[in-house]
Structures are given as C-alpha cells and as structure tokens.
C-alpha cells in the first residue's frame, strides 16, 4: 500500500512545474511526504531542481548575429532570381525592346527599298535625257 502511494507521490512530484496542481493532489502529496521521508527528500530535491532552472536569467544574443545573417543573405538576394513581380516587369521590358527593334528594322528596310526605287527611276530619267 505504501509503495502504491509512493508511486502516486513521485508522479505528482515529477509533475511539479508542469501545470497548477489540483488541490486534492497537492493535499495528498503534503500528507504523504509528512510520513514518508524518501518522498519528502525527493520533493525537496525536485523543488531545488526547478528553482535552479527558474533562476536562469534571460540571455541576450550577441550584436553581430543580425549583421552576420544579413551579410550572408544580401549577396544571395542580389544575384538570385527576382520575384514573380520583378520577373513580369522584366518580361514586359524585353517585349518593348523587341517591338522597338522590329519597328527599327522595318523602317530601315522601307528606306532601303525606297532609295533603291528612287535610284532606278533616276537612272531611267538620265538615260531618256541622253537618248533625247
């Protein structure tokens, strides 16, 4: 019987710090440790462990972490593929460029054809003047 209640007490002791103890569980534990020296010692040690864990002060990160992380990421972000939005902007730019180049080539061809035609007409006129 003692062993069974000791097991229950140990379970309750190990739950210390997990959640708030139910009142009946806490009363059982208090009553038990009053007459069980082993469980009483275990409770004392567990309270010391929890106290020691709770005593840790917050630790602050060294200042250089932010700088170091961003130092590693920035070059990657500069050279990596752009976002979807940026990509669509890029595609639009290429289309405009290609369109402009197409128009330019068209104009150049038209000019060349017209010069060729005008040149032929000029030769014919000169020939007809000579014949006359």
């Amino acid at each position, binding site marked *: 019987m003692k062993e069974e209640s000791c097991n229950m007490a140990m379970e309750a002791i190990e739950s210390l710090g997990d959640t708030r103890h139910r009142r009946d569980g806490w009363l059982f534990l208090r009553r038990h440790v009053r007459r069980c020296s082993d469980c009483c010692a275990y409770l004392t040690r567990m309270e010391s*462990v929890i106290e020691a864990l709770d005593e840790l002060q917050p630790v602050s990160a*060294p200042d250089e*972490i932010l700088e170091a992380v961003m130092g590693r*990421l920035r070059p990657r972000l500069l050279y990596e593929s752009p976002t979807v939005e940026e990509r669509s902007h890029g595609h639009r730019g290429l289309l405009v460029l290609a369109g402009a180049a197409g128009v330019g080539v068209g104009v150049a061809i038209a000019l060349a054809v017209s010069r060729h035609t005008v040149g032929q007409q000029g030769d014919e006129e000169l020939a007809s003047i000579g014949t006359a």
Partner: protein
Amino acid sequence: MTPRGLSRDGSEEARLVARCRQGDVEAFAALVERYQDGVYRVIYRMVGDREEARDLAQEAFIRAFEGLGTFNVKKPFRPWMSRIAANVAIDYLRRQDHPNDVQLEAVFDVGADRESPMPESDGPESAALSREVSDVVWRELLRLQVKWRAAIVLHHMEGMNYKEIGDILGVPGNTAKTWAHRAKRELCRSLEGVI
C-alpha cells in the same frame, strides 16, 4: 522566446514574411532583430557554448529564410522559428562524437548566467548550498540525453507546453512530457548526497 515589438496575433509577423517573399531584405532583418534573443537562448541552453550558439543561431536564421516558402502565415511565427532553432541545436549535438559531454568551461559559463542564488538574509551557508545545487544541476543538464535536454529547456526555460514541444521534436506531446519528467528525475538523482 519573447520577441520585441510584434503583435500578439502574429499579424505583424505575417506581414513581414509576406514582404520577405517579395524579396524585401529589410523585412527579414526585422524578423532576425526581433527573434535573435530567443533563438540564441534556445540554442545556447542546449549546446552550452557561446561561440557555437552564435554560429548556430546564424545557421537557424539562414534555414528559416530558405524555408519561408513553407511557413503558414495563418500560424504563429514563434513556434516555427523555435522548431528550427531546436533542430539546428539537436543536429549539431548529434554530429558531435559525445553529444552528452560538455566542456568544463561551458558548465561554468552557463552557471554564470543565473541570478543571485539566495537572498542575502538567508546567510552565507544557504547561499553556498544553493550555489552548489545550481552548479550540479547545470552540469547534469548539459549531460542529459539530447532529447531529454531539449524537452526540459523548451518547457522550463521557454515556457512551451508539451504539445508544442512534441511538435518541435516530432513526437506526441505525452512523449515530450515523459522526456521532461525523466530529465527532472535525472537532475534530482544528481542532487543525492548534496541535499
């Protein structure tokens, strides 16, 4: 992990993550700035070495950046980031030849962070005993199995519940609870003969 300046409902984090995904570097810098203390603390408590913790914290943020695409903005950012930090620390400890051994200076390094052990009125003997207890607990904490240590660090020092810890460690919440209880039992055993 208590980030500074972020909204409780996580909407600020969600906005920052969305901006990061658009390629906004400064948004990620804001996340690093706000979470660096928490990430560093989790890792430092687990590895017990400041230099290693600093490098591993950087690694955790790089991993986080690379994994931003998988982050669900409807969920809080803190557990997601803690999971990455804990996993980086666990991976590091598993890579070591003797993951449960720590350098002696690391033990005292950790001990140096704690608050004054006892109020002045308790007297020098109580203070000395308390300091001895703390030293034993810190030493044993860093010698625990990695999974037990992770469970107790995340629960007692980061205030996470066992469900969250289970999610981080990839086990059910009850398993995380068992590990934390075993860790506490082991720490208690180390105090036999001291108190």
